[in-house]
């Protein structure tokens, strides 16, 4: 099978699904464009703040697209490319897309509150407490893991001074932060034109990459990066969402779109055939190490088909910024389908050569840079660009996860009489969330990280339970 066919068929099916199944769902759920969203009714310009749909799509997409859509399909390719491909396409359209959009829509009909609150209203208070504790601990684990991943990516090893890819990516990523704050200030406080600001912002984004590549001045150790990242996520969690988190995610999304476009053009030119087998059977390995297609395929390919983390983003930062209910389709459903395309590309990068070696990130970077080299981008520069985009995925998920953890902590410690408490304070909630993650990072989050895949998919199941319960209640 030619990979170009797989890619184009996938894109075509996603477009058809967006136009048809998306329209059906919008009608079935009763999307009401006249109804005011929480971004307007609860506006505080810190967490609740109406945003342009395209800006919010950028924030949502780059937040949900952690490392998962790349690592998942590459790891699951041991089952052959066909089951992975089918799960990505069918899962994104009928499972993940519905889950993401449903969570987002349910949240805006509950004042932009979390899935836990939707459970409280429609199932009961005990359900909310259990879900929120589970979701919060999962987020603490995510913050610890992604801090570690980002710090490891950016770290400079004085013993190997010739290796500068980490320092380059780290320097560029810090420049993105200041660029995002300038973008947020000019767009939201000075009323700068969004299109013009986006063009200038994207140009400066790529200029920042060039500066990082030419002048990798931030040669910090992993521990120093841990500290820098902890300071950054604290700021991203507490500053007004329009000032740092949302514009940074929005601008970084162009990095991701550029990588996607580069990979698609490269595949159009190269048209590599899938070299790995289409299917290798239901079971791989023996004994306790045996891997079964069901359920492992559906746990391993998470972000590329369905991921519980998406529901936390949808019912967390995104639902508080949606300007109209109509935008839920583009942000909730559209972002998931774009992520499906990314997952297909990841599958192609591992499938066009037999026995691809290295980590999933290296396989992906090697494949995409190889494709891009066919239209003039040298492999060395292409690899740095893809690694930078990969770290941008991780960092945008990290800052959003911290803010989501803060929301959940505040929701869990909110007093029934509505009065303020010290634990409910934004800074205290962030400090506790970041502190717990730092503790987990120090004491070895890796001990429980292998359970994350199952926990994440359980989150997805529980979010679908909450949305289903709400839908049933609406019809009673």
């Amino acid at each position, binding site marked *: 099978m030619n990979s170009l066919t797989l890619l184009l068929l996938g894109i075509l099916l996603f477009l058809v699904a967006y136009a048809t199944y998306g329209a059906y*769902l919008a009608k*079935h*759920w009763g999307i009401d464009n006249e109804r005011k969203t929480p971004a307007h009714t609860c506006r505080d310009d810190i967490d609740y703040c109406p945003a342009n749909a395209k800006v919010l799509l950028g924030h949502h997409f780059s937040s949900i697209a952690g490392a998962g859509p790349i690592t998942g399909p590459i790891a699951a390719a041991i089952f052959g490319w066909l089951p992975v491909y089918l799960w990505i396409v069918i899962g994104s359209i*009928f*499972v993940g897309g*519905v*889950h993401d959009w*449903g969570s987002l829509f349910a949240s805006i009909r509950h004042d932009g509150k979390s899935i836990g609150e939707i*459970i409280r209203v*429609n*199932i*009961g208070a*005990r*359900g909310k407490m*259990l*879900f929120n504790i*589970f979701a919060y601990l999962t987020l603490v684990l995510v913050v610890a893991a992604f801090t570690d991943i980002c710090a490891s990516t950016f770290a400079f090893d004085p013993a190997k001074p010739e290796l500068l890819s980490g320092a380059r990516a780290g320097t560029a990523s810090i420049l993105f932060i200041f660029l995002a704050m300038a973008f947020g200030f000019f767009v939201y406080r000075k009323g700068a034109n969004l299109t013009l600001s986006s063009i200038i912002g994207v140009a400066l984004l790529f200029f920042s990459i060039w500066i990082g590549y030419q002048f990798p001045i931030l040669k910090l150790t992993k521990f120093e990066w841990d500290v820098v990242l902890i300071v950054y996520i604290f700021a991203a969690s507490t500053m007004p969402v329009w000032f740092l988190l949302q514009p940074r995610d929005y601008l970084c999304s162009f990095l991701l779109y550029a990588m996607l476009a580069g990979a698609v053009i490269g595949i159009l030119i190269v048209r590599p055939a899938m070299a790995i087998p289409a299917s290798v059977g239901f079971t791989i390995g023996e004994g*306790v*190490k045996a891997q*079964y297609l*069901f*359920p*492992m395929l*559906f*746990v391993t390919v998470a972000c590329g088909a*369905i991921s519980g983390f998406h529901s936390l983003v949808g019912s967390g930062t995104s639902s508080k910024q949606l300007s109209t209910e109509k935008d839920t389709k583009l942000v909730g459903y559209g972002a998931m389908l774009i992520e499906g395309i990314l997952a297909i590309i990841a599958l192609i990068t591992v499938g066009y050569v037999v026995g691809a070696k290295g980590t999933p990130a290296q396989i992906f970077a090697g494949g995409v840079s190889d494709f891009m080299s066919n239209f003039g981008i040298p492999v060395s520069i292409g690899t740095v660009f893809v690694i930078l985009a990969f770290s941008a995925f991780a960092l945008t998920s990290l800052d959003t996860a911290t803010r989501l953890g803060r929301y959940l902590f505040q929701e869990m410690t909110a007093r029934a009489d509505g009065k303020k408490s010290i634990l409910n304070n934004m800074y205290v909630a962030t400090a506790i969330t970041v502190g717990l993650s730092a503790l987990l990072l120090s004491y070895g989050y890796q*001990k*429980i990280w*292998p*359970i994350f*895949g*199952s*926990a994440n*998919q*359980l989150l*997805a*199941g*529980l979010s*679908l*339970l909450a*949305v*289903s*319960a709400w*839908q*049933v209640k609406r019809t009673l």
Partner: protein
Amino acid sequence: MTVIPMVFMFAVTLTALILVGRNNFASGNFIIGSVAAILFVLAIILIVTTINTFFGKKSEKKNISA
């Protein structure tokens, strides 16, 4: 629209948690095995709570009184 995906995802995760728990207990990794067991119980509690909310005795009484 959400019920079939929900049932499928519960089938996936509950099976996965059983396998992860069994494999880790068998290989002596009690931390992950225990976390898998806790998550399994959590999922069952939430599923049972939901079923009781919609089909339980309290729900029936409410329907009758309504």
